[in-house]
C-alpha cells in the first residue's frame, strides 16, 4: 500500500496491509506536526502539503522496493498527507512487517529517511501569527 491521502491518516489500514502470518514484528512510524520549526522561533499552527503525485508515488514505490531488497522479506505500507495538517496530526504513516523485529525497525527508519530526502512533496509552514513559509528538508537532494 503506497498512497497520497487528502484525509486524516490512521495507522490501522497500514497495519492491516502489512499483516502476515509469517511475520512476528510490525513496526509503525507516524510523523506529526510539531509546534517548533528548526531555526524559527514562531510557533507552528499547521503544515500544508502539496505533491507532484505521479513522481511522488513512483518514488515511494521505489523506496518500498529498496527496503525489500535491503531488509526483506517484508511487507511495507507508506501513506502521506496532502493539504492542511494541524498541530499534532500525522502527515506521514509507515508500517513494516517482517519475520523478526530488527529488520522491521531498520526498514522503517530507512523508509522515512529516504522519503524525506527524495519524494516530491513540499510543505508550507503556517505559523500562529498567520505568516507562512515553504520549508525544505535538510535531507533534500541539492
Amino acid at each position, binding site marked *: 500500500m503506497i498512497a497520497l491521502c487528502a484525509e486524516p491518516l490512521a495507522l490501522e489500514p497500514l497495519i492491516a496491509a502489512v499483516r502476515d502470518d509469517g511475520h512476528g514484528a510490525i513496526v509503525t512510524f507516524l510523523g506529526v506536526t510539531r509546534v517548533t520549526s528548526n531555526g524559527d522561533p514562531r510557533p507552528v499552527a499547521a503544515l500544508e*502539503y*502539496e505533491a*507532484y503525485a505521479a*513522481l511522488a508515488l513512483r518514488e515511494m514505490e521505489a523506496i518500498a522496493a529498496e527496503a525489500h531488497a535491503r531488509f526483506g522479506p517484508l511487507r511495507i505500507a507508506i501513506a*502521506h498527507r496532502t493539504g492542511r495538517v494541524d498541530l499534532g496530526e500525522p502527515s*506521514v504513516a509507515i508500517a513494516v512487517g517482517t519475520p523478526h523485529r530488527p529488520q522491521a525497525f531498520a526498514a522503517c527508519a530507512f523508509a522515512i529517511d529516504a522519503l524525506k530526502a527524495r519524494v516530491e*512533496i*513540499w510543505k508550507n509552514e503556517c505559523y500562529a501569527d498567520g505568516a507562512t513559509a515553504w520549508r*525544505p*528538508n535538510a535531507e533534500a537532494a541539492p
Partner: protein
Amino acid sequence: MDVRVLAFARLRELFGFGERNITCAAGATLEDLWSELAAQSGEAQALRASTRFARNGALAPGTTELCDGDEVALLPPVGGG
C-alpha cells in the same frame, strides 16, 4: 510548440500558476523555459540552483530540448515527512 508546465510550492506562488500551457521557440531547452519564466523574479532566479526539472515524469537536465506536448515540472527541494 506548446508545453504543459507544472510549478510547485514557492515556485507556484512566484510564477502565479500551478499548471499552464506555454509556447516555446523550436529547439528551446528546459533552461530556456526557466529563464523566460524567472526573468521577472529575482527570487525565482535565486532559486535556480536548488530547482530540479522533470520532463514527462522523469528528472531531466536543463540542457534537455523540449518537444511539442511535453509536460515539464519545476521542482523545489522536497519537504515531505
